[in-house]
């Protein structure tokens, strides 16, 4: 199968699976179908990405669909997040499905929305047209909105409304930016559908109207930045992440944010090429990146809810990716490496936090004590993944953060490097304090340890082992993928 043939199927398959899910009559059946369908889509996506990474970019459907190294790399991260989360959903919803809190109808709707959001994010990644990319981002907002309130509690509804409104308005602003980009093609003589195809725009980059393109890029960064959770546009994020069921939080944090950031990254080489590679567009990303890291650090210090803590940590990590891409060169490759590490690590942290929340009946940090003794797999998983996320060596997150820092110093951006280190240091200390309390603070009342099964342990510890391994040794093929993807960003030559 060539990549050209499989690209349309990647969008259609989840849509069909979603339709089938709506018809299923049993809660457990729907969840199992969810996992099976996600794995099937992931297999196809994996083959497609492999073909593209070996044979070069694939284009089909008159140029509307396109997959190159950058999107293939994102695609691999996305399927990892979706596969892990759909398997975890079987564990997370097991009790709820057994005692009827998750009715068959709800489970069917969950499956439909799950595949719907998979299809929407797939559309973002395989679209060549900036407009269709926008359609995908907006569709993913709408599909995921109801996933937040599978259980219609007041908190979930509030989070959902905030998410829906802020992201819809933000993404509408991004559309204004896309219109401005289309208007910038005037001097290049592009018309109709050519005006928004990324490949065509890149070829004509030197003939575009730079002023118009700059204005468009500002709108695009602000608009998609709202969805990506870049501070100060991140207000919806902690609410939505903390109120959604854990498998959904994992998808939100692991890839939904990256899908929006991807749209900004797509426009970055365009604006750089059109403005003569002076680093104008990249400096905007540096500012937003640093701001996100520092704001997230401030909120992490005073956080009392474990899922909100993880949500602010996502703001921090998205900031690190934006910062790396903004520094450019080796920084762009480091940012893409960081994306992979974050997309493996963060879902695991949400999985463990979700189960611990179910076991303890609360997400309040002061109430979570002796978690390793009470829930060996989930407690140890949460603590290891938190350690990895704050950048303890030798986990790979440390390596990618170090590479971003090195890129900043190599480009003589000393102030940027200092602020970056400050943010990381504050987060490190604040999270470490919580980790120590969760692991060793004596519990008020003793309860026996919760039983766990082998699949649960494997689901948590295999990905964590991979993150550990990546921190010590990056396989050759992965390095090649990262440098190819960074080339698309105009970073490495």
């Amino acid at each position, binding site marked *: 199968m060539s990549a050209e043939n499989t690209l349309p199927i990647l969008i259609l398959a989840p849509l069909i699976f979603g339709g089938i899910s709506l018809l299923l009559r049993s809660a457990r059946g729907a969840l199992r179908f969810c996992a099976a369908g996600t794995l099937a889509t992931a297999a196809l996506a994996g083959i497609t990405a492999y073909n593209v990474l070996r044979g070069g970019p694939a284009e089909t459907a008159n140029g*509307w669909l396109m997959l190159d190294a950058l999107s293939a790399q994102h695609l691999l991260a996305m399927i990892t997040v979706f596969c892990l989360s759909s398997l975890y959903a079987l564990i997370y919803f097991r009790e709820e499905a057994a005692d009827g809190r998750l009715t068959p109808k709800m489970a069917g709707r969950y499956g439909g929305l799950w595949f719907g959001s998979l299809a929407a994010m797939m559309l973002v990644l395989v679209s060549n*047209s900036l*407009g*269709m990319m*926008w*359609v995908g981002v*907006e*569709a993913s907002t*709408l599909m995921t*909105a*109801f996933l937040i*309130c599978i259980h*219609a*509690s*007041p*908190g979930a*509804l*509030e*989070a*959902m*409304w*905030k998410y*829906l*409104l802020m992201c*819809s*308005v933000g993404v*509408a602003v991004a*559309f*204004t930016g896309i*219109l*401005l980009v*289309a*208007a910038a093609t*005037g001097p290049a003589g592009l*018309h*109709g*559908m050519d*005006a*928004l195809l990324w490949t065509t725009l890149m070829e004509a980059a030197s003939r575009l*109207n730079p002023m*118009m393109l700059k204005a468009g890029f500002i709108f695009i960064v602000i608009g998609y930045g709202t969805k990506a959770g870049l501070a100060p546009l991140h207000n919806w994020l*902690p*609410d939505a992440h*903390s*109120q959604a069921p854990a498998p959904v939080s994992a998808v939100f944090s692991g890839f939904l944010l990256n899908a929006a950031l991807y749209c900004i990254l797509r426009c970055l080489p365009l604006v750089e090429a059109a403005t003569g590679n002076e680093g104008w567009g990249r400096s905007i990303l540096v500012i937003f990146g640093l701001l996100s890291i520092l704001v997230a650090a401030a*909120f992490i210090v*005073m*956080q*009392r809810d474990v899922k*909100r803590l993880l949500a602010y940590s996502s703001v921090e990590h998205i900031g690190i990716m934006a910062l790396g891409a903004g520094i450019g060169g080796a920084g762009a490759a480091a940012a893409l490496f960081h994306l992979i590490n974050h997309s493996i690590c963060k879902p695991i942290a949400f999985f463990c936090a979700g189960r611990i929340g179910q076991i303890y009946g609360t997400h309040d940090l002061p109430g979570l004590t002796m978690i390793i003794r009470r829930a060996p797999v989930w407690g140890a998983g949460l603590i290891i993944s938190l350690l990895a996320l704050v950048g303890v060596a030798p986990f790979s997150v440390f390596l990618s953060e170090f590479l971003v820092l090195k890129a900043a110093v190599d480009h003589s951006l000393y102030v940027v490097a200092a602020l970056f280190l400050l943010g990381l240091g504050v987060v490190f200390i604040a999270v470490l304090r919580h980790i120590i309390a969760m692991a060793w603070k004596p519990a008020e009342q003793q309860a026996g340890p919760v039983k766990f099964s082998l699949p649960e342990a494997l689901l948590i510890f295999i990905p964590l082992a991979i993150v550990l391994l990546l921190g010590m040794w990056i396989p050759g093929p992965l390095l090649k993928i990262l440098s190819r993807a960074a080339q698309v960003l105009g970073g490495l030559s």
Partner: protein
Amino acid sequence: MIILLDTLLVTLILTGFLLLGSSRLGASIRISALQGIMTGLLPLALEHGDLFSYVSLLGVAVIGLKGYVFPRLLFSALRESDTSREVQPFVGYMASLFFGILFLMGSFWLDTRLNLPVHSGSDLLVPVAFSLMSCGLFLIVARRTAMSQVIGYLVLENGIYCFGLAVVSGMPLLLELGVLMDIFVAVFVMGIAIYHINREFDHIDADRLSALKG
């Protein structure tokens, strides 16, 4: 054609003002429907040459959605809740109108400064687009009920649609349909959300949804 176009644009500005000054939610929905129909008619009044069938097809789709489907959806959500008017908005109605005039003046000023390459027949199109966009954003932040915020979102969308007509010469049909479908689903989802919020909280006052902090 230019007279028809300018009439439509002036009506768009007026509907924006009406929305800023109206406290009854039912009336606001009707006005936004009228505004939707006007934006749907706009491309028909523009110069389009050989694209007539394509433009009219799109116009019909826009008018059908914004003039009929959206108001019906919003009315059914409104009927479920007991709310019929906006109580104590953050910014009063007279002040809102004053802001509307400021937005309009600002839009004309911005238009002279930006020098956008405009394809359309009327010089009014870009200022009207800017003023609708700012009106929409203002409605979203200055009103309390979830319903008014949805209406604000629709006004924002109408503004962006006008802006697109002004600066882009003909977008591909597939893309236009994709965008329309997204807006349709957005309003649909927001309508259902209002229904759920009303059932859970007994009000649709988005300002009082403030339990989640920090």
